[in-house]
């Protein structure tokens, strides 16, 4: 039996479904290349040696870099492991894109609530670019 579901729920679900599939494919395919030894930003043997250390220390010892923000993978998209992280980025963006697509379908106070959620989400993404949090 069919029931009428609020259009904002339907739009949210459809957009989420599309970006989940794109994100999963974009994460897994480059990872296969990475595991096969194709173009590695972090050498797998190096990763094994240092993955017991906190994230900051791991990057200091494997790549001699200090991580703050997203440049560490965005600047290295020619490597398979960083491309795989781009797939994770798509997954982490899926709810935001779904919320944005849903606003035009929502009514009354939900326009305001969904807009607040979108702003909060964007702040969560941009926050590391203007705040250093790890204490390095």
């Amino acid at each position: 039996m069919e029931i009428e579901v609020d259009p904002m729920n339907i739009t949210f679900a459809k957009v989420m479904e599309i970006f989940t599939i794109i994100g999963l494919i974009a994460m897994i395919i480059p990872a296969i290349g990475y595991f096969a030894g194709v173009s590695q930003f972090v050498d797998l043997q190096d990763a094994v040696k240092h993955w017991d250390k906190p994230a900051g220390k791991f990057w200091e010892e494997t790549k001699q870099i200090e991580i703050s923000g997203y440049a560490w993978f965005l600047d290295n998209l020619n490597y398979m492991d960083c491309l795989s992280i781009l797939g994770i980025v798509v997954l982490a963006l899926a709810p935001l894109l779904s919320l944005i697509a849903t606003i035009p379908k929502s009514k009354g106070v939900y326009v305001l609530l969904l807009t607040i959620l979108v702003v909060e989400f964007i702040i969560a993404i941009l926050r590391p670019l203007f705040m250093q949090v790890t204490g390095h």
Partner: protein
Amino acid sequence: MDFTSVWWFWPVILFLFTLVIGIIAPISGVGGGVLFVPLTTAFFPFSVDFIRGTGLIMALTSSLSSAPQLTKRGLANLKILAPVVVVSMVTSVIGGVVGLWITNTFPTGKYYVTIALGIILFLIFIVMGKSKRVEFPEVKKVDSLSQRLDISGAWFEPSLERVVEYRTTNLVIGLPAFAAVGFIAGMFGLGAGWANVPVLNLIMGAPIKVATSTSMLIITVNDAAAAWVYLANGAILPVIVVPSVLGITIGARIGARIAVKARPKFVRYLVMGIMLMAAILDIIKGLGGLGIIPKIL
């Protein structure tokens, strides 16, 4: 040959481990993330930073895979999500920041986080043991905020062969509870179904199917927001994330098929026993790391 020093050894073990978690999670009714983070912290060589980052991505992927279908059927409801996540998204990001700050700023920070994780697991164990599930809670009076937001919905329930309509209440009490749950989920990389479902079902009066489905929807937004904290700190490694996501995704499909046929109660008790053991092991590992007791893990 020492297999543990070969790069693929731990990822393969991790895949098999998450496959098993994926199979038993739907049968036991316990979320996979709640099992993954404490057990991996206790038994695997990875830093707790990478484990929490992976836990979040796993919980996010699992929820993203199931939430759209549940939303289209009217079981997961954005009208419940919107006011709740306005609060919990902020606290989940703060949780992620605080967790990484502790492990990266203090040399012994990771041990404090491991001990706190063990204590949180005890809390989850108690919540899961005590909380009852009410199939169709009766909402006698809707609070003014929920009324103003018109938090309501409907879905077709095959077991009753009719459309079930519902309303929720007590939003003002639910909001601080979701704030606390968001913080814990962000800090420890846990999925938060163990807490979301009782709050939605027992406090806000959502039917149990709506509560479990909407919890999935809430996890998608909260965990996605917190994941950016881990991404910005380099705490996401494909060599750990990809085998885990694949393992839990394949396992969950197998587990869901088994769960349709049989959900023996002993599996739930077994899983709760494993959680209790993981809590004890995490505390022992943390105390050992701080030198308070001899290091045995």
